């Protein structure tokens, strides 16, 4: 029963255009593999090569130690079942007839169905929840129902390996999860190998134990979801800025797109903006400026602090200090270095204590170095100064030094202020 698929230097092209450009990988019994990648990356083509529907131009696919061309189709169909996208079926077979066709590789040409065949068909229909549809013609089914019938047919094939080409594409949310749970339980209880092409990165991340990220016909990254679904990989392959957040239930990385338009820096203000925050005071502004394509850095933030978490998610350059420790001179210096190289600085309405007083001093440093400084201060500094007046004194010096005070952390106002400051220079 153990199934081993080995792909070596697989190359495939449609009429001179190379689609797969040297893919090598190994799939073992019980694997649950997701193949992801942008449109045109060759995911489906790869799957069709695996299923022997397309023939590689070069390279080898070896299944159970035997190269694909040497397999008889009928035998291969007892090892691999493919669930295609099943867009067109020309004739109105009933659901039961459709599913029963999954037994084709098992039944002799003029042989009749044995009890085992009937059981396999019924079980497949029950598992996929289409038993109640069995008398219906497939023309009368919805897209989702049809996709479940295709899965049922593949299950009726009773193969140790299922290949699925975007099995959830026509399904609504409920059925997507149901189908993936079914695949997971088949994988866990019966050690059925699952290889599926997925469009939905988050579902792929949650259900697949291993991901292959295809890009330009090559494997761009592979490994467990945490290794593959990183901000950098997604940016490289999908050219989209995303946030990676752990799923609240199982901690699997979830991909949250930020902006589709911004693959590069904001065109109007290309210098980096340094943000001084803490305690969540800077988070909304960081997210918004980030979304608009500004290049950002942050400091000094305590590890575990909510502003720190935001900066990390956004992948910002920042200076970190250990939690519950005052800002050390070394971190302070690093902060000043970032400020020196920044085009502008924003001071968020932080609560000021002895530990983070250097952050306000850093803002003063920005003024001294003629960096435009925007200070967000709504209700006055007095309410958030826990240093016995030292903080408030520094704020006064900031005001005298020409810092621009804004009442709210409003991104539009900040951007406008930045433009006027930078054009004023």
């Amino acid at each position, binding site marked *: 029963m153990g199934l081993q698929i080995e792909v070596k230097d697989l190359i495939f092209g449609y009429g001179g255009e190379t689609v797969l450009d040297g893919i090598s990988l190994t799939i073992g019994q019980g694997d649950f593999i997701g193949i992801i990648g942008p449109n045109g990356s060759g995911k489906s083509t790869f799957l*069709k090569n695996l*299923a*022997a*529907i397309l023939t590689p131009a070069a390279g080898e696919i070896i299944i159970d130690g035997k190269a694909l061309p040497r397999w008889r*189709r*009928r*035998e*291969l*169909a*007892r090892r*691999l*079942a*493919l669930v*295609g996208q*099943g867009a*067109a*079926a*020309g*004739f*109105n*077979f*009933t659901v*039961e*007839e*459709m599913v029963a*066709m*999954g037994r*084709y*590789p098992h039944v002799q*040409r003029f042989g009749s169905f044995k009890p085992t065949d009937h059981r396999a068909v019924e079980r497949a229909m029950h598992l996929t929840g289409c038993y109640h549809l069995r*008398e219906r*013609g497939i*023309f*009368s089914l919805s897209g989702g129902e049809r996709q479940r019938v295709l899965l049922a*047919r593949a299950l009726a*094939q009773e193969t140790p390996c299922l*290949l699925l080409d975007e099995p959830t594409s026509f399904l609504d949310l409920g059925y997507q999860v149901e189908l993936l749970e079914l695949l997971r339980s088949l994988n866990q209880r019966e050690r059925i190998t699952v290889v599926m092409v997925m469009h939905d990165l988050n579902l792929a991340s949650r259900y697949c134990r291993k991901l292959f990220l295809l890009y330009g016909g090559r494997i761009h990254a592979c490994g467990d979801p945490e290794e593959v679904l990183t901000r950098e990989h997604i940016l490289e392959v999908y050219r989209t800025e995303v946030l990676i957040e752990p799923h609240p239930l199982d901690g699997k990385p979830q991909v949250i797109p930020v902006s589709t338009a911004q693959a590069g820096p904001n065109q109007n203000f290309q210098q980096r903006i340094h943000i001084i925050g803490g305690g969540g005071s800077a988070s909304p502004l960081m997210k918004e400026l980030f979304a608009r394509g500004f290049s950002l850095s942050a400091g000094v933030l305590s590890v575990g602090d909510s502003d720190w978490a935001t900066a990390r998610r956004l992948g910002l350059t920042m200076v970190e200090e250990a939690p519950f420790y005052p800002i050390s001179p070394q971190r302070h210096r690093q902060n000043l270095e970032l400020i020196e190289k920044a085009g502008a600085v924003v001071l968020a309405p932080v609560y000021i204590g002895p530990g983070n007083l250097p952050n306000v001093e850093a803002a003063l440093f920005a003024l001294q170095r003629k960096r435009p400084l925007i200070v967000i201060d709504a209700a006055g500094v007095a309410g958030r100064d826990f240093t016995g007046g030292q903080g408030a004194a520094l704020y006064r010096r900031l005001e005298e030094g020409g810092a621009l005070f804004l009442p709210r952390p409003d991104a539009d106002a900040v951007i406008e202020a930045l433009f006027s400051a930078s054009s004023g220079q």
Partner: protein
Amino acid sequence: MRGRRFFLLVLLLVIAAAVMLAAVGIGAVMIPLREVAGIIWNALRGSISPSPLPAETIILQVRLPRILLGFFIGASLSVAGTAFQGLLQNPLADPYTIGVSSGAALGATAAMLFFPKAASTFTIPLAAFAGALLALFTVYRLGSVGGRLPVVTVLLAGVVVSSFLSAAISLGMLLAREQMRNIFFWLAGGLGQKGWPLLLFIIPYFAAGLAVLLYLSRDLNLILLGEEDALSLGVEVEQTKRWILVAASLITAGAVSVSGMIGFVGLIVPHAMRILIGPDHRYLYPAALLGGGIFLVAADTFARTVIAPAEIPVGIITAFLGAPFFIYLLRRHREKYRF
């Protein structure tokens, strides 16, 4: 479902027997059923009177071979149409789509043009058959791309070859006016005047072709799901398509070379049977065989009796009966029957 399909097949068989029996009795000359039965019984026992009565000659030499030929031609066209519609996944495909019939017509035309002396009821079908095979070969070569037979290229090749051959036939008719009439009549098609020898001529092709189609009926079912699905279910798709194409073409060639072009049977009967019995070719082929036979025998009986003793070309009757029936079926089963 199984029981229903079995019942329908038996029902079709009964109807086929009844229609053929009735057809033997009906004609320009009415012969009572009792006398018909007596004549057939005597013939089966092998006692043929040395100087037969006209009724005996009419039954044994004219009607029986014509009815049986009608049945086999109808069955051939309908079975071939079923296969082509499935294979090419095209509801408008029929035995004439892929140029086999035009090849047959050109073969017949060439025989009449170049060997008018030798052209006879027997040599013309042979020439037609050769033409059909030549057309099939051409379409096959034109339609195959890198060892495969993509549906689209086969269809296109069929259309192109058909048009080219039709033009060649027209040219032939223009160049040889003396034969134009013969060619024209041959193209119009008909079942009269063929007799037993031509019936025996087509049966081997029909039987061989049908055997291949039945053997591959389950594989064709899977190909209907889409070629990729069929491949993944273990069907050797290209081989299967090749065999089906050749078998259906052989059947068509046999039928067309004997009867000329009789339209509508190969287009409509498969659709009607698919509505009746479903798309599973294991049942669809037998149904199409019986349905096509019944349809053509009925149409031909109509053609030879309605203005007796004169005749109407049977192609006119198949079109007249076929088109409205088809529309009726389509309207009744619109939602169920979508291509």
